[in-house]
């Protein structure tokens, strides 16, 4: 850096807006521009195939945010994605690419439904039953993914492939029990565990149609943000993620940190599974395998592994899913349309990462670190 630019910067820093404000402005402007750019790209795609971009985007708005119903539709669809997004984001902070959220969600949902069978059968109080179900889902998910973290640390097994394999195994395990020993005989053509019944279902947030998983997800995002950004634990985890050798040299308990981060991740996904059972399905069955765990990976990446940013990104995904239906119905376009749009949007958003710290307008210091 030359003395001249350093001078200019210090002048601007003293007279202009503060560093925080500029960083925030940058963090909002760049993604916003990326969204606009991908909209332009997608409009070109639509023009090429002979569809009207204006109709398309006004329908996306209608379906995603255009009415109170549409907003609730988007938020409800976002609920599991917040939790599975967190399930990827937390291990990512410590440098682990853990893609086992799907398996933890399925297994967490399954065990919480399974433990409910004797409780509901014995007429246990509703709040107690739900609490035990939630704890069961959280613990199962936590152990399942925590095991991946332990394998990584203790045996050097690559966590990416192990967590993917464990997801397939989790799904096979659930299917085995749901279609076998724990099958409700009345669930004829859709093998499921015994339903918990309406009395034991978690209701909606008052005044809305959105289930409590959404509020819990936001709460958890805040808690995990504090944990990862404002505590010694989070600092140690991030330091390990930045440079594991240095972390070891500093005497940080790397293995413990890894297993803990993975356990937290599995707990988030297991909690998502609990809400799918307690708020949506009322039982466990193959519908738990809905791909939320895998979508969560993309959510976390777009949120740059920041637990707070996971929330708006998940809502964006929810809105796109909600809008996809309207696009199919009104424009007669296949559901894959939204996949193409999503793909373009995400690619452009990721490309926009390259502009952080490079647009003169937002510069206070030469390089912005954006962890």
């Amino acid at each position, binding site marked *: 850096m030359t003395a001249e630019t350093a001078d200019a910067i210090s002048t601007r820093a003293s007279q202009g807006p503060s560093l925080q404000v500029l960083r925030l402005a940058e963090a909002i402007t760049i993604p916003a521009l990326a969204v606009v750019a991908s909209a332009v790209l997608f409009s070109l795609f639509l023009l090429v195939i002979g569809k009207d971009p204006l109709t398309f985007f006004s329908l996306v708005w209608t379906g995603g945010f255009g009415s109170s119903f549409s907003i609730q539709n988007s938020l409800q669809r976002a609920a599991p994605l917040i939790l599975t997004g967190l399930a990827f984001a937390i291990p990512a902070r410590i440098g682990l690419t853990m893609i086992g959220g799907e398996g933890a969600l399925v297994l967490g949902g399954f065990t919480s439904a399974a433990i409910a069978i004797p409780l509901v059968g014995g007429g246990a109080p509703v709040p107690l039953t739900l609490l035990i179900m939630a704890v069961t889902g959280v613990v199962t998910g936590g152990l399942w993914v925590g095991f991946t973290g332990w394998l990584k640390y203790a045996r050097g097994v690559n966590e990416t492939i192990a967590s993917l394999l464990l997801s397939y195994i989790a799904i096979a395990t659930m299917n085995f029990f749901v279609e076998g020993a724990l099958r409700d005989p009345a669930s004829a053509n859709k093998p499921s565990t015994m339903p918990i019944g309406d009395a034991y279902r978690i209701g909606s947030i008052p005044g809305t149609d959105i289930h409590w998983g959404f509020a819990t997800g936001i709460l958890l995002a805040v808690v995990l943000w504090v944990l990862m950004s404002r505590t010694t634990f989070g600092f140690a985890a991030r330091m390990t993620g930045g440079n594991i050798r240095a972390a070891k040299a500093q005497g940080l308990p790397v293995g413990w940190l890894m297993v803990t981060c993975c356990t937290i991740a599995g707990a988030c996904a297991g909690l998502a599974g609990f809400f799918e059972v307690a708020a949506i399905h009322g039982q466990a069955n193959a519908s738990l395998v809905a791909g939320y765990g895998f979508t969560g990976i993309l959510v976390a990446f777009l949120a740059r592994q920041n637990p707070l940013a996971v929330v708006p990104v998940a809502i964006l995904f929810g809105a796109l899913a909600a809008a996809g239906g309207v696009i199919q119905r009104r424009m007669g376009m296949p559901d894959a349309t939204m996949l193409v749009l999503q793909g373009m949007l995400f690619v452009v958003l*990721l490309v926009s990462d390259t502009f952080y710290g490079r647009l003169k307008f937002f510069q206070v210091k030469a390089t912005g670190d954006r962890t």
Partner: protein
Amino acid sequence: MDSAVLTVLIAMLGGAIRVSTPFMFVALGETLTEKSGRINLGLEGNLVLGAMVAYAISYLNGSPWLGVLAAGGSGLFLGALHGYICKLPKVNDIAVGIAMMSFGTGLAFFFGKPFIQPQAPHLDSIPLGDWTGNSALAQALQVNPLFFVGIALAVFMWWAFRNTRWGLIVRMTGDSAASAKAMGVSVELIRFLATSAGGFLAGIGGAFLSLYYPGIWNQGLSSGQGLMAVALVIFARWDPIRAIFAALFFGAAGAIGPSLQAVGVTQGYYFFNAAPYILTLIIMIISAGSKAAARDVPGELSITK
């Protein structure tokens, strides 16, 4: 019981030959990419788009081999896009891969609608087992030329990584970008080329799915095979020969579930069907403890940092 064991073994042999090829091509492509120090998790998108393009071209043009080439071209396009984007500073290659997966499958599903129903000309196979006089064995030894292309390619890559200038440059780029730069190598160019070539190979793998086995095009065709193949690269510890064995193993294990049911072992088929995943995990846990795995990792990979 002996004949039942034989039936399962023949089925596993057949499964290894029939099912392994797409895994091979994707895994070899990803090995090349990762050897250069970059990860492309999005090869599932290349596989699916390749499958669709191959089927469409074969149907429209009547030539399945032209379809194979076109599939490679579509994979090359996605790979080059990934390679180009990841040249930009601060862009995360894993994230771009996942986004490209969504983009590639989206394009394939969107433009693939008209090709689900028609029947496209398939690739021919070479009957290597007719002499056996056993129809199951003869069927198991119906081998598609792409299977041999895959094996030849693996041997070539294994040799080239050790013995050619290009091979050494790719490996050096993957192990230490700084030393590659010091040698005057354009790291970004090498990675761009390696990602593009890897994408090309994954597209070919897709052509095998749609034009040979199972030989159809629809949206459920791949169901995650591309993602699994990328994971197999880690399992194979970035070695092309081991990647071939991993693919063969995975194909053979996949045949266990259906063939056990065929010989009357019918209980617990969910776990037998999950055999490829369970066995792979067990092998990884047993073998990963050795320090060999850590030694083979390309030093620049963001996945291992």
